[in-house]
């Protein structure tokens, strides 16, 4: 069997070759980078104290995309997760995809501090097609204001559920939308993401399979992790994608209780 040259070349080799051919693109000195900034919207005079050298990937993201102000975030209630997520917490609005192959591995526990906070605001919480019945006493025990929560049950048809998610995300009356769907295509997620941006609402979508090239604000994959020696529950969190950020990473988080 014969192979062409392209097929034999590894991706790393191609990247090295590309970097060698265009040194100014990825690596450069301070002067070159300053020239680039001057050609951009923001002048270099606004960034006098920044020392840039070496790899461009080491440069803070705010400099790479200076025209974009950082999206407001809200602390997750877990310091490790705050460090993992760009902006230091959950986005205040937008779509968050949470992918977990199995249910009941602690996916709601992860959101509990946020739910506690949002449920006590005037806007209501909407739970769309949760896999099982929500247990009011347990939610109340966790500090969630159930008076402000409304549920569309799992028996609802998929098209009705999607319509409801979109309307809820577009609405300013809804503080947070939590929706469970087995899988959604990129186009649907894009539409929901636009709805969330329009209504400045936070939507959390629980999936079983990741959507490739998802336009969501944040895409996280959860996995089960063994309990700690003290008997605390743990969960593995992998940051797959965050809008406007190249950050990726994986942590293991200890859950309360």
């Amino acid at each position: 069997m014969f192979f062409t040259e392209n097929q034999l070349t590894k991706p790393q080799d191609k990247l090295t070759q590309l970097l060698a051919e265009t040194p100014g693109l990825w690596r450069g000195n301070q002067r070159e980078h300053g020239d680039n900034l001057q050609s951009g919207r923001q002048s270099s005079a606004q960034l006098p104290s920044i020392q840039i050298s070496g790899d461009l990937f080491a440069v803070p993201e705010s400099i790479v995309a200076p025209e974009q102000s950082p999206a407001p975030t809200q602390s997750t209630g877990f310091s490790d997760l705050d460090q993992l997520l760009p902006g230091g917490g959950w986005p205040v609005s937008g779509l968050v995809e949470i992918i977990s192959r199995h249910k009941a591995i602690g996916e709601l526990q992860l959101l509990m501090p946020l739910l506690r906070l949002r449920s006590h605001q005037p806007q209501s919480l909407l739970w769309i097609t949760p896999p099982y019945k929500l247990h009011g006493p347990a939610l109340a025990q966790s500090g969630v204001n159930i008076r402000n929560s409304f549920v569309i049950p799992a028996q609802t048809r998929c098209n009705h559920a999607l319509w409801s998610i979109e309307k809820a995300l577009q609405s300013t009356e809804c503080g947070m939308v939590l929706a469970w769907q087995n899988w959604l295509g990129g186009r649907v997620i894009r539409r929901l993401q636009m709805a969330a941006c329009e209504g400045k609402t936070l939507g959390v979508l629980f999936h079983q399979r990741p959507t490739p090239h998802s336009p969501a604000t944040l895409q996280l994959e959860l996995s089960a992790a063994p309990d700690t020696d003290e008997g605390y529950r743990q969960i593995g969190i992998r940051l797959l994608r965050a809008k406007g950020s190249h950050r990726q990473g994986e942590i293991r988080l200890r859950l309360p209780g």
Partner: protein
Amino acid sequence: MTANRRALKQGGAPFLRAIPHSFHKPVLLTNKPFWYALHFPLLNGHVHTPIDELATICLSVSDHVYLPGHDTLVIDIRGSLRLFGSPRGLSRTLRPKLEDKLRQLDLAPLYTEAASPSASASVLLARLGRTVLIQQKDGLRSELGGLAIDFLAVDKKIKKRLASCGLHYLRDLWRLPSAALRLRFGRELSDYLSELQGEIKTSMPRWHEPLVFNRNISPEAHAETPSDILWLARQLLEQLVTFLRQHHKTTDHLHFNLTDIKLQTQTIELSTRKPARESSVWLMLLELKLQKAVITCSITSIHLICSNFLDYLPGGAHPSCKAGKQAGSDKTTPTLLELLSARLGEEAIFSIHQQEDHDPVIAGYYKAYGHTYALMSHSESPRSCGFLPTGTQPCLLLPAPVPLAIQQQRPVYLSPLLLVRGPERVETRWWTGQDIQRDYYVARNLQGMRLWIFRDLKRSREPETAKSCWFLQGLFA
């Protein structure tokens, strides 16, 4: 004659005549109120009292209809006597209409009537079945004097005290000085006696005809599509908005009746959580309802009925509007939950509730959104009583416990379960005969799922069911 001359000067009707002195009956042409009471003894204890329908008939003789009780009507007929000549003439006009209505309501056409210058006296006499006409105020004392005190509408304790003093008839009370009566038996009795004699006015709730908006539109070209229906509905809604503005009202519920070419009627009910009188709100809700409705034939007529009205309060002044929230009476778009319930149905959106019970299935429950909002708007009942479970309970609960398989004496859910925490015993409902005796555990499987399982103690005691005594109740998501 003065009036006649003046009318002729102004080019008015030349046939105006002065009323002869013989028609100047002292009671009939007085400006003082004259009360005609009707008592319907068969309405007492009727579940759905049709007093409103009877009161509507009474509006044909006077605008001033009062409702002192659910079985009695009182009419101020001072202005009507000029037309009907006398209370007897008025009674003769009213009687056939009332009797027909009572027959329509499957009731015997029986009622008693009384008329006098005192509303309380008229009501008392009508309730006692004494059909009398007392024209003069002076005649009240003598006519009422023979009535026993037991029939008076005063407190039982006062009646007992009067009886213990040897006062059994009203004439006994007439003889006593009113100041002494007030001092000894209280203001309630003395005021009631004054009302009976027509000295002070009786306070009674005035009856108003229920407001109903009922309009129909039948286009020459039948409505074939939802957009046709919406176009027609828009016209009806604009009429409704005008009606609401004229009456200074708003509404939170209305319904459309769509009649098709086969004369079958389909009702579409629309309701909002907060009252609204903007047609755009109702049109948006109707559009969503029409998306769900199945319309097979072309629509020949659309009927809009609205009977649930609320006083219009501008801005955020409506009681249902909390501070910082959208004004209820001035809103131009429906709320999210109204939109969702219009599209999905009111039985498709639920609110989460809890109650104090050790059985987790009963402790947490859903209630349909429509029912919840009706409950909250009318009684402001709390959605939870602040009950918190004592042990650890999961956020997701199965609708009914699912039996778990057993492998090597261990319960299995996808993989063998490891008991992490427990047991927590729950024993309840022993008084119902379907008692619960369970040991709850928090378990974990190899997939990392944390589950809430229980061991049914009743089943575990019996050899036949001992192997299938483990159940899955919830998931710690």
